[in-house]
């Protein structure tokens, strides 16, 4: 017996409503338990995903296929981890504890819908459902000026990027007369055969799409919002932003460009390749002098997106598969690093890298895990990040994108310096007598998931690679 394709989203949506309702009846000090309820909802949704029929709905506006399955798992996993680390984090809030979880779940529902969207209006609405809860969440630490700034900045720039995207959508609609991705593809193909090379209107709409998604992915030069928002937002939200919302932008990008615009691949691919190169170079170089771990990870995630695009611009089955695979590898390593940062911040109230000094003496296990997460982000074998980068670079080299891979490997070497900077603080400095970092249940759980992920994806990547290759079969190349 299979449920209809959209059932997991419907279920999670209803569950989220339930959270809001239950929140209303709970006493203030019990509200943190809503976190566990949310985790349960996510687990059930994951199970439901495997019991829902793959296929199309709403006249091909919605499609549940292997690509959306892969990314839905990524979203649910990152929401699970983000909520799991938030359980003790929200205890610091004076009010609105329940809503915190609810909003994360709403955003997750948006991401899930987005990964299945094959119609531009559907896609746009899903994207708004992803980001609007995140605007609120970024500003959640209201009395904190930085958080308020983060929320406002994120909302203003998010709104602008949405507007740009809408403009692109309207241009495409004007040119092709449809908003369905498949319809656009057919129409563009006909145009291509009749008219020939790309016209200015279409080119402009490509640019708008790239800019719109570029904002969501925080690619250079659309990255300016990211460091401030990442620093100001509550850290679990930063973690969620850096993985979940980026993966959402990525899957939307893949859908639109690989399905609809594939006729004009050569026209947009160079632009994206240049953005990838810029993101890797600028992201990594600006990450070097950062002293705050959240800002450092913000810039590093800009660079990481650049690496992911290296696989994307290969425009091949291997390329898309490597993009999906790396997203997973990145999820575990990046969230893992954030979880450590959250645990540290919960106890010490600091997210300055210099305060990590001597952490290996007081909390050896936590430091060791942090070291593995950071090394995975660098791409040191045998961790997940290495296999991921290997796969991305393989896809690019197969398509002779040597210049891009050379930039990617050289910037990886640069990235080593700032990632290892944290390790150096933790291990080299002799400061004794630091207090042991206490790990609440939620954080412990998240750490265990992340470390298992980093090791499993690194050492026995085969099942994940198969899943990613399945996802890549959705497109024709």
């Amino acid at each position, binding site marked *: 017996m299979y449920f209809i394709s959209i059932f997991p989203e419907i279920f999670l949506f209803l569950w989220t409503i339930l959270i809001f309702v239950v929140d209303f009846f709970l006493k203030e000090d019990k509200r943190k338990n809503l976190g566990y309820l949310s985790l349960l909802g996510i687990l059930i949704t994951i199970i439901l995903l495997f019991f829902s029929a793959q296929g199309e709905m709403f006249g091909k506006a919605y499609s549940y296929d292997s690509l959306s399955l892969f990314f839905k798992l990524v979203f649910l996993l990152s929401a699970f981890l983000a909520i799991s680390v938030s359980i003790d984090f929200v205890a610091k809030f004076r009010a609105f504890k329940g809503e915190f979880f609810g909003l994360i779940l709403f955003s997750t529902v948006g991401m899930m819908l987005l990964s299945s969207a094959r119609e531009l209006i559907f896609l746009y609405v899903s994207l708004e459902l992803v980001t609007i809860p995140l605007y609120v969440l970024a500003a959640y630490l209201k009395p904190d000026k930085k958080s308020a700034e983060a929320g406002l900045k994120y909302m203003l720039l998010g709104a602008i990027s949405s507007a740009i995207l809408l403009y692109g959508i309207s241009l495409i609609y004007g040119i092709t007369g449809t908003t369905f991705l498949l319809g656009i593809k057919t129409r563009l193909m006909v145009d291509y055969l009749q008219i020939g090379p790309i016209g200015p209107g279409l080119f402009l709409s490509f640019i708008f799409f790239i800019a719109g998604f570029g904002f969501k992915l925080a690619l250079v030069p659309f990255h300016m919002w990211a460091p401030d928002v990442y620093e100001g937002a509550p850290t679990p939200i930063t973690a969620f932003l850096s993985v979940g919302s980026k993966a959402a932008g990525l899957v939307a990008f893949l859908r639109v460009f690989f399905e609809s615009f594939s006729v004009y691949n050569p026209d947009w691919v160079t632009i994206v390749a240049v953005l990838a190169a810029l993101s890797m170079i600028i992201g990594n170089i600006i990450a070097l002098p950062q002293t705050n771990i959240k800002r450092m990870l913000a810039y590093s995630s800009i660079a990481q997106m650049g690496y992911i695009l290296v696989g994307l611009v290969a425009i091949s089955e291997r390329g898309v598969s490597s993009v999906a695979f790396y997203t997973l590898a990145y999820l575990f390593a990046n969230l893992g690093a954030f979880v450590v940062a959250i645990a540290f911040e919960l106890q010490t109230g600091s997210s300055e890298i210099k305060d990590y000094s001597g952490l290996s003496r007081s909390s050896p296990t936590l430091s060791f895990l942090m070291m593995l997460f950071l090394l995975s982000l660098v791409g040191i074998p045998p961790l997940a990040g290495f296999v991921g980068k290997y796969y991305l670079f*393989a896809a690019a080299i197969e398509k002779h994108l040597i210049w891009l891979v050379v930039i990617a490997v050289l910037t*990886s070497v640069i990235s080593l310096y700032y990632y290892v900077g944290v390790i150096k603080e933790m*291990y*080299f400095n002799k400061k004794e007598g630091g207090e042991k970092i206490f790990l609440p249940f939620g954080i412990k759980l998240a750490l265990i998931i992340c470390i298992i992920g980093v090791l499993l994806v690194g050492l026995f990547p085969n099942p994940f690679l198969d899943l990613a*290759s399945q996802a890549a079969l959705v497109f024709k190349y």
Partner: protein
Amino acid sequence: MSFPILSYMIFIPFLGIIAVLVLRKEQVQAIRWASALFSFIPLVLSFFLLAHYDSSTSTMQFVEKHTWIPSLGVTYFLGADGLSVPMLFLTALLSFLSVIASFNINFRVKEYFAFFLLLEVGMMGVFAALDFFLFYIFWEVMLVPMYFLIGIWGGPRKEYAAIKFFLYTLFGSVFMLIGILALYFTSQPHTLNMMELISQAPLLAKGFQLIVFVAFFLAFAIKVPIFPFHTWLPDAHVEAPTAVSVILAGILLKMGTYGLLRVSLPMFPKAALYYALPLALLALINIVYGALVCMAQKDLKKMVAYSSVSHMGYCILGISALTVTGVSGCVFQMFSHGLITGALFLLVGVLYDRAHTRDIDAFGGLWAKIPVYTGVMTLFCMGSLGLPGLSGFISEFMVFIGSFPVFKVIVALAVLGVVITAAYFLRMIQKMFLGTFNTKWEALTEISGRELFTVIPLAILMIGVGVYPSPLADMIRATLENIVHLVTG
């Protein structure tokens, strides 16, 4: 061969890591002995390897092959031939001796030995891996423990030296990664199997070979290190704790030449011929420049470090000649330099532990005070400067014999290196051990039994290979003949 001996050699040290981590921080003695035990077992296994190696053939032996990541074409593929067996033995030996030499580490003991054993895992793996993916993993895995070992237990500029080492080697190896991928996509069918790639090598276009050779060369040249990529070496060697310097000089540098012999020559035969002369010139610079820099050193450890630059130059010269004798000389030099320089670093450590200085000029007339130490040190210095009867002489002689027919002028100039080497070692011996006794060192104690234990096996081997080199020569001959044949046809 049903007994997976190579896997055991690689992963028994890994079990040692687990054992060390399980022990409590305070059980210092237990941690030390556990590490010694878990590095001793691979040594025992390596004797087994030596005993069962069939030197009449150049095919891979002790092969283990299992599928690992079929989606990426990666297999778990290990094997050993005449090139890797001596290196595996040397790795096992030096690792064990270094663990013993590290018994005097009193600071963060548990972490130290865990990292040290991880280092051994990586080194063993590099010499046994025959799948490029696996090879790269082991190649990189070593960087992390090395970074910590230098950075935590090193000398005054340890943090700088550690990150410099890490960045330099990573810089080299990422280009190797690109090279690996380029080879993968050029091969038909796509493969990461190094043996398969070697058999396909003649099909590769010359232009492709010339480019990809350089990608691999960067990785290997930084490891060796070949001038001008050598600047990480003096920092890392000088700042590293004694045992780590031993491993650095004894094993890590050999990975560069091992890579050249295992990968660069057989996989890019046309490029190897094309680049032979530039390589020989770089070797000459290494030999003479390295030796001249040694002349100027006041720090004993720095002098030994730079002597590695000079000595590895002979290896490169032997390789660039592309003759069986030259390449054999290279492997002899790899082996012999591992023994001699390993011992020299151990001995420098012994003195530094007591005197807390390595300034050559600060000593004088030590012979009278610590005769045993002086005797051993002088013996190894003689080995290093190429005294006949010791292994260093054999290897240098073979390198010169093998490369003279090819590069007459370069070899003639390279012989200068031998003279300079003799000069700086004799100058050092004279300043430190001869002359009037500096009474400041009245309290200096003789080398201890444990310390002596770490260098005696090396001395025996050095003399053994020097006097009776044919067992080693027999072992490597078939393999190296095959490699040279692949290049020169």
